């Protein structure tokens, strides 16, 4: 299975290596560097690279390449899924997963990796089990105290208990409206839970409208049978943060798109100036504010510079990458944010034949666009009263507007 792991940063330095079987020379990564060079962007580096004696499977996250070396046939998703799990674990341990953090905690990282695989086969990948074996650096002290407390006979139940069952619903869209009509839109969501309960609480979570859920996948703690028969999520939660459920809302229900974008981008053949205007506005938001709006667009190569004035927020245009980005912030329905101005084009060149795509990011608090509602969350098996809370949120996924 997985032979070795190399962590490579964006400048091509191997800053960590771990071998689970005999040592593989780091020169094997040269093949990876070759592929990296060939691919212009990091995103385009193929996830599977064959070399004469090994195969390199990599994932790219947080500007780090996690390159696994394998020698024999293995399902590639097995390795890829595992690498993602490694990244998730690091994130869970250190809050962020970045090169400096990994370098700072190299011993913990190394020990975690040692526990996660034995002879290349996954051993312990659940972060709550790992945390029992190897303490994360920050919560070290407090946990030691708690544990010793427990050993002295103060049972779990006596400890102050609290739970924060925070359910984030993140329905996300992918939609590409062209000439006013939506090409495709879908809602996918997740329920992330943060559970901090003592003992062995048995939780059940029920929905007002479980029929909405079309396709679901569960955390292993969820009892599948119960879901099949009653559409209730019944589970004994692991400690801490975990993704309880991810779902997809059936496409038959038309998606109400909460924003619209008006655009007027025109190039003229003769002149070296183009007109540019974008307006963003809310629609069907059920009275909630749209916030965190960011508009980005990759302008055609012919655009030399842009002189724009936003009605609110800040904007930047990078003349090298031709990336326009406009941080709008909140949308005030009374005064719609707009960005107007001109583009200066390469003199003499004919007008670019493609129109830029506009990407939109936004968030809506306290609203689940899918209409999914949690009915109740009950706890069985423990006597204390837990603190319960739920937070709904809608976030744009890959929201693109073709112009």
């Amino acid at each position, binding site marked *: 299975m997985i032979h070795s792991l190399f962590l490579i940063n964006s400048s091509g330095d191997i800053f960590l290596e771990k*071998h689970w079987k005999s*040592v593989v020379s*780091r020169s094997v990564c040269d093949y990876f560097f070759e592929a990296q060079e060939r691919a212009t*962007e990091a*995103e*385009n580096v*193929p*996830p*599977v690279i064959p070399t004469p004696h090994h195969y390199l499977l990599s994932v790219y996250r947080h500007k780090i390449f996690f390159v696994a070396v*394998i020698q*024999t*046939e293995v*399902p*590639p*998703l097995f390795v*890829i*899924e*595992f690498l*993602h799990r490694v990244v998730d674990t690091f994130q869970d341990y250190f809050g962020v997963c970045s090169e400096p953090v990994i370098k700072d905690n*190299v*011993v*913990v*990282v*190394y*020990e975690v990796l*040692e526990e996660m695989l*034995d*002879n290349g*086969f996954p*051993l312990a*990948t*659940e972060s709550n*089990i790992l945390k*029992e*074996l190897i*303490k994360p650096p920050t919560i070290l002290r407090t946990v*030691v105290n708690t544990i010793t407390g427990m*050993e002295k006979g103060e049972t779990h139940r006596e400890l102050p208990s609290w739970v924060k069952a925070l359910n984030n619903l993140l329905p996300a869209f992918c939609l*590409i409206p062209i000439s006013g009509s939506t*090409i*495709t839109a879908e809602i996918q969501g997740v329920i992330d839970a943060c559970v901090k309960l003592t*003992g*062995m*609480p048995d939780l059940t979570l029920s929905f007002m409208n479980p029929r909405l859920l079309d*396709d*679901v*996948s*569960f*955390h*292993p703690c969820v009892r599948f*049978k119960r879901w*099949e028969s009653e559409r209730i999520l019944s589970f004994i939660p692991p400690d801490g943060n975990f*993704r309880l459920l991810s779902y997809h809302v059936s496409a038959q229900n038309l998606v109400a798109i909460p924003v619209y974008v008006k655009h007027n981008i025109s190039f003229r053949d003769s002149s070296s100036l183009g007109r540019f205007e974008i307006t963003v506005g809310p629609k069907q938001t059920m009275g909630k504010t749209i916030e965190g709006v960011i508009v980005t667009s*990759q302008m*055609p190569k012919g655009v030399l510079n842009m002189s724009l004035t936003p009605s609110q927020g800040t904007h930047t245009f990078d003349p090298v990458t031709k990336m326009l980005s406009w941080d709008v912030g909140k949308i005030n329905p009374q005064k719609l944010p707009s960005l107007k101005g001109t583009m200066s084009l390469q003199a003499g060149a004919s007008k670019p034949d493609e129109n830029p*795509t506009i990407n939109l990011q936004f968030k809506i608090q306290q609203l689940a666009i899918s209409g999914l509602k949690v009915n109740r969350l009950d706890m*069985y*098996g*423990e006597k204390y009263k837990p603190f319960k809370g739920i937070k709904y949120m809608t976030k744009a996924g890959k929201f693109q507007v*073709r112009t």
Partner: protein
Amino acid sequence: MSSNSFAYNEQSGGGEATELGQEATSTISPSGAFGLFSSDLKKNEDLKQMLESTKDSAKLDAMKRIVGMIAKGKNASELFPAVVKNVASKNIEIKKLVYVYLVRYAEEQQDLALLSISTFQRALKDPNQLIRASALRVLSSIRVPIIVPIMMLAIKEASADLSPYVRKNAAHAIQKLYSLDPEQKEMLIEVIEKLLKDKSTLVAGSVVMAFEEVCPDRIDLIHKNYRKLCNLLVDVEEWGQVVIIHMLTRYARTQFVSPWKEDDGLEDNEKNFYESDDEQKEKTDQRKKPYTMDPDHRLLIRNTKPLLQSRNAAVVMAVAQLYWHISPKSEVGIISKSLVRLLRSNREVQYIVLQNIATMSIQRKGMFEPYLKSFYVRSTDPTMIKTLKLEILTNLANEANISTLLREFQTYVKSQDKQFAAATIQTIGRCATNISEVTDTCLNGLVCLLSNRDEIVVAESVVVIKKLLQMQPAQHGEIIKHMAKLLDSITVPVARASILWLIGENCERVPKIAPDVLRKMAKSFTSEDDLVKLQILNLGAKLYLTNSRQTKLLTQYILNLGKYDQNYDIRDRTRFIRQLIVPNEKSGALSKYAKKIFLAQKPAPLLESPFKVDRDHFQLGTLSHTLNTKATGYLELSNWPEVAPDPSVRNVEVIELAKEWTPAGKAKKENPAKKFYSESEEEEDSSDSSSDSESESGSASGEQDEGDSSDDSSEESSSEHGSDSESASEVGDKRTAKRNSKSKGKSADSSSEEESSSDSESESESESESESRKVTKEKEKKKTKQDRNPLTKDVSLLDLDDFNPVSTPVALPTPALSPSLIADLEGLNLSTSSSVISVNTPVFVPVKTHVLLHRMSGRGLAAHYFFPRQPCIFGDKMVSVQITLNNTTDRKIENIHIGGKKLPMGMQMHVFNPIESLEPEGSITVSMGIDFCDSTQTASFQLCTKDDCFNVNIQPPVGELLLPVAMSEKDFKKEQGMLTGMNETSTVIIAAPQNFTPSVILQKVVNVANVGVVPSGQDNIHRFAAKTVHSGSLMLVTVELKEGSTAQLIINTERTVIGSVLLRELKPVLSQG
């Protein structure tokens, strides 16, 4: 870092192996030896000093720095002697880091590594399972050939360890030892065989992994474990699931016959498929007996289905490929939704999944058609994803959706990513060839693209147009002219070559233009690309043959240029053409046919997917499939066998195991699905009871009832699942029930399990009617004698055999782990929680009777009931109730019977036989059985006489919902250990000391509840055990006397509701004076 000592806690051998450290010290070379080298080594020098220090903190710091060096890939091997002597350190932190170091460098320093072996050997015997496991892990990771025998011994021992976690590590060690010394193969196979029989889900994945690595060809080892693996699959950890599913896929392909009809080949359309299926079924019906699926085959397909909901992409993909490769074609469809879900994951996952979907979509368009829009390309996708999506879109294109797709493609062509735009044009070409209706539209669209400003786009369009025109050359003179004009502007060689070729082919249709083109080309010949030069030569030759008057000289000029070209291909081609077309004395017979040779009708190229090539013969989801080359260690998926190998090899004949598996079979027997599969039953003669009972299968008729059977399968799997964890006594009961129904010769066509059990109840009733009457009579006598214990030898009538314990002792990990980790580990353990139950006779039967019907309200008929506390003869889930009827009137009461029943959901009641008449002042006792479903809900019914009906009800005290259980103190503690947390309720009781004598407590407890006494070693702790009648869950009661006049009352049970009710009832009883 210093925190995880709790994991290894105090138990870790205190004084272990200090002498090893001393040994090691003596072998260390004097530290001055490295003095010659640079300052870098000086740093190591201080590390060495720190390691020698007496302070643990210094050592720990040193070790951390060393591990940091290893992580960065720096060589730290020279510190080996200094590090290895700390292997026996008492500090767990240091020890662990030393292990890390040791594993990394042992291979390089074999002699010194040997010094550490004895530490591990000792740790292998440690009472803490984590320490045993980690010792085995490190020992087996030390790649030193000399210790192979030691490793072998350690693996053998560990494979028999009580802790499943250690056994899991043993399975991992097998692979390590095998790679170190392949000669151990035979011995290792023995260990694998043993571990394959393991019932722990923790072990299953790892041992199958070892199997795949060491002896993937020994499929005979799997037979006996096949059904177990299928049933365990859902509970195995996710990584193990992937490995097991892949292995089982291969297994299924060797052991079962193909579920695919011979001639349905590659289905393009679901609709077609169903039609052809129907037709074909008729045909096959006539021709030969229909295909019936092996029940084991069905078992695998059914048990993997829930895993499509896994969060782990690898598991979903593994199930998808299993369905693709082994399930009937009509069932493959369910995987598409799950695969499409994976597309919303990370780019790497997308990449692999899209590749697999691409392969699938070539063969089965219908599967992914509903998800067409999921494959639309976003401008932010990486190029490789874009290309794959395009590929799939092309595969999915058909007459119905092509117009939408073409509109979508138009946007892609305008994309800023020109590579992608070019790929789109290719795609449009393929769509045009595949769907004849749109060929013209596509062609026109492509011609428009010829005026695109981007060269790559234009070039690609030319190439595609060339291919399209070749298929229908007739009416496209205009396009060719247009393209000829493009020659002036286009510089991309492939495009130029394509245009030249097109003109050459169609030179007779454009007689004026062709020679002119040749003239232009002759001018620029020397500066053209090789590809273009070859086409210029071709064009020249063709024109020479058709229009030699105008082009003879030009062609000869070109041939002369070609003769002195640098490229030998071109020189060869020139020579060849000259010989063929220019007539001279030496030219042979061939030149006569020159025109036919050059201007032959050429078959149009097939525009095919690059994925079509060979890729589909690799198993989906494998690395080899992704790379499209055979990866090292790829195991071929064999073709279906013509005739299925003997299916009986999978029958498990060992008696204990057979018991384990029968319930699953029985459960199926009572399934409604059975009706559909009656033919298959006939086929398999029902001599063998297990194959008989499992004979439902996906026969041709079964496939029609697709919806039904899939519903069933989920039900079935649930019942099966349940029966796995059901208590042994229930197993026994089911078997008797079955026996009864068999003896009656009734076929099992009842519609549900419950029904059938009630069925068999009624039968057993009639069978045992006479007996039960006897019982009643005898009881009556005893009753009159005021016997305190009516339950005597009559018990033998109740066939207690059925309650025979099948005890499978559970390997219990030493509780050295922190509690939650234990819970985690145990959650993975398969053993049923109630494995040590054996039903006992009641300790005490209270004489307390309850009024059912007062004589005043019953018009002279009085009824009392009491609980005789014996297993009910009417059904094992029922509570026995004895009703004593008294006639207080002065006339006969006739026909006493039970009328309408009003029972809560699930509750069942077995009524007594009507009493014909009751003499005045007479009394009669009858028995009934009520299944209270482990609840204290009231059973209401009507007690009727000839003239009247009286509404009566029975509410059971919670203590009567139990059956006493005999178990040892050890078992009790073990079970109690498993029922902690939410399963535990407790309270404190305060009472006078005289109430806390053992006999009083015993008396009080058994008075309230029908529990069995567990012998106790301690005077101050009293333990009682019982199980609930309906579900058989354990109910453990502990009374622990404390100082002063208090006691702690603890109840452990899965049925927390009953537990707390019982607690509430026991508390006042125990505390009262």
